[in-house]
């Protein structure tokens, strides 16, 4: 029988000939990802009562949510994790400064085609950029994975999004993802495995592709998959990144999809998610002119080299507007080093921006740039829920790095094409 990617990968992991949507299978993930929440998870793990992790080799821990620690409490949390890492013999440990967990997994070759990545973080779908099955799980569930090496999963129905044509110049995968989320709503892909196909997707570089599965969490999806191609294989193999050999999996022609939609990339325009939900999407033109107090370029959604290159292209030779702050946080140390070598960091600092160390930064309001009461932020992140960046009394708009960079220069929401230099 023809199967979708999710059906294929879960059947293979469960050692079954075939699985159907709705069926529950028990599988052992290839990678089990946690971040700063590894400390509370360790508390639950200890309640289970086994002394050792069943499979420390599948465990990956990346400190990113509040790094470097902003308070003693956070530092204490990190200390507990470092001790646990030593005690349990965890090799895939990346301490503060390495980068955001989803990006680091890709760079370190731990999100691999045909593999299953379970993460105690809701954006673990990100791993789908490499053709992996990435899904978020809860804390008790991660504690169980640590204790037993396995977890139950319900086989999801699948949605197929096919994007033909090419995105116009100045329009990015962020705009495409926001458009889709706006069309389908925050529960548009509830429980589903969302597959992205079509020439527009193939044409994207890996960095731009990663934005798509990352954002599918905001549509309720369980996982999101892009078929791995030579761009993926070259990245993994040429760089010697892959931690192990892997077998890419592809959906069969004729597989059954619960929902199939098509988009023509050439019709996509720059989009913005307005406060306070990600599906509150509007074409940029509708919100243009909104004053912004803070512009933030970074996060697992759009903090990669290509994102910084796009932003630097807008900011080169320009200045951040009076009354607006610009914060730039590369998604990882690798991105930071490359952006430094390419001169992008210089551009940001010369423009009047602040460049901070790799990690999540202010994405969820932990530190490094919280907006004040009544302020408006525009960010390249994936979530703008009320209070997300700290205070409930602030507003967060989401957009592409191009738009965020241009808005920093103008002091109001604008597309780079509309920037007028004085």
């Amino acid at each position: 029988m023809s199967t979708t990617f999710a059906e294929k990968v879960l059947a293979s992991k469960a050692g079954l000939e075939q699985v159907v949507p709705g069926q529950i299978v028990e599988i052992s993930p290839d990678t089990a990802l946690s971040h700063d929440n590894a400390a509370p998870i360790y508390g639950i793990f200890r309640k289970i009562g086994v002394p050792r992790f069943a499979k420390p080799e599948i465990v990956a821990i990346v400190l990113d949510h509040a790094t470097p620690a902003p308070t003693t409490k956070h530092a204490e949390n990190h200390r507990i994790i470092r001790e646990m890492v030593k005690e349990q013999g965890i090799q895939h440990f990346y301490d503060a400064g390495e980068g955001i967990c989803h990006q680091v997994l890709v760079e370190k070759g731990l999100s691999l085609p045909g593999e299953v990545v379970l993460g105690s973080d809701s954006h673990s779908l990100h791993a789908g950029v490499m053709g992996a099955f990435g899904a978020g799980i809860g804390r008790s569930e991660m504690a169980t994975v640590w204790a037993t090496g396995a977890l139950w999963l319900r086989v999801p129905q699948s949605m197929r999004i096919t994007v033909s044509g090419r995105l116009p110049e100045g329009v990015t995968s962020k705009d495409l993802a926001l458009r889709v989320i706006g069309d389908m709503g925050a529960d548009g892909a509830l429980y589903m495995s969302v597959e992205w196909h079509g020439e527009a997707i193939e044409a994207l570089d890996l960095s731009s592709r990663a934005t798509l599965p990352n954002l599918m969490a905001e549509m309720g999806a369980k996982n999101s998959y892009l078929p791995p191609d030579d761009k993926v294989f070259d990245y993994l193999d040429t760089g010697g990144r892959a931690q192990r050999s892997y077998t890419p999996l592809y959906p069969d022609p004729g597989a059954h999809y619960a929902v199939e939609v098509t988009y023509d990339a050439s019709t996509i325009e720059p989009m913005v998610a307005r406060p306070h939900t990600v599906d509150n999407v509007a074409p940029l033109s509708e919100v243009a002119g909104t004053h912004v107090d803070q512009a933030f370029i970074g996060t697992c959604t759009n903090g990669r080299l290509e994102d910084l290159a796009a932003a630097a292209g807008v900011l080169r030779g320009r200045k951040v507007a009076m009354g607006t702050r610009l914060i730039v946080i590369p998604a990882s140390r690798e991105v930071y080093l490359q952006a430094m070598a390419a001169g992008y960091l210089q551009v940001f600092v010369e423009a009047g921006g602040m460049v901070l160390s790799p990690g999540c930064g202010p994405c969820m309001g932990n530190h490094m740039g919280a907006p004040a009461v009544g302020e408006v932020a525009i960010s390249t992140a994936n979530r703008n829920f009320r209070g997300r960046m700290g205070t409930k009394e602030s507003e967060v708009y989401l957009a592409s790095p191009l738009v965020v960079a241009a808005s920093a220069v103008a002091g109001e929401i604008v597309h780079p094409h509309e920037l007028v230099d004085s």
Partner: protein
Amino acid sequence: MTIRGRVWKYGDSVNTDVIFPGKYTYTVSDPAEMAQYAMEDLDPRFAQEVRPGDIVVGGTNFGCGSSREQAVTCLKIAGVGAIIGKSFARIYYRNCINNALPAIISPEAVDAIRDGEEVEIDLEAGEIRCPAGAFTFPPLPQVAMEMIAAGGLIPHTRKRLGLE
């Protein structure tokens, strides 16, 4: 396993904030107190009148919003025997099974059941019996049944590891 009780019927997209208000997530951890706030912002009668075995019926996307596990445990402690929905938010569904609260998907049953009716659910047979008739649903898979029988994911894990 058979669950029998009175139905508390609600609409679509019942979110975790109305099931268990966010303001209590870090302040209330005592189980009995947690049950007191169940459904506070949706149905003030609920916490007072809910009886063991009662069944919550919701529409689509039941439990959307935050991943807070208390939105499941408060209902469980209050005595709710099962939830029937047209669909569940993904993490909420997992939290239900992991906390041994059967979450059953049956759009037909949801349409047929009226608030306040007596309803019976046979988990093994995969059948919901209500005044309008009987509706089948795919029986919960073995793992989920075992987890429910064990009392949730953590006790289930302990059992499987031979710790109890």
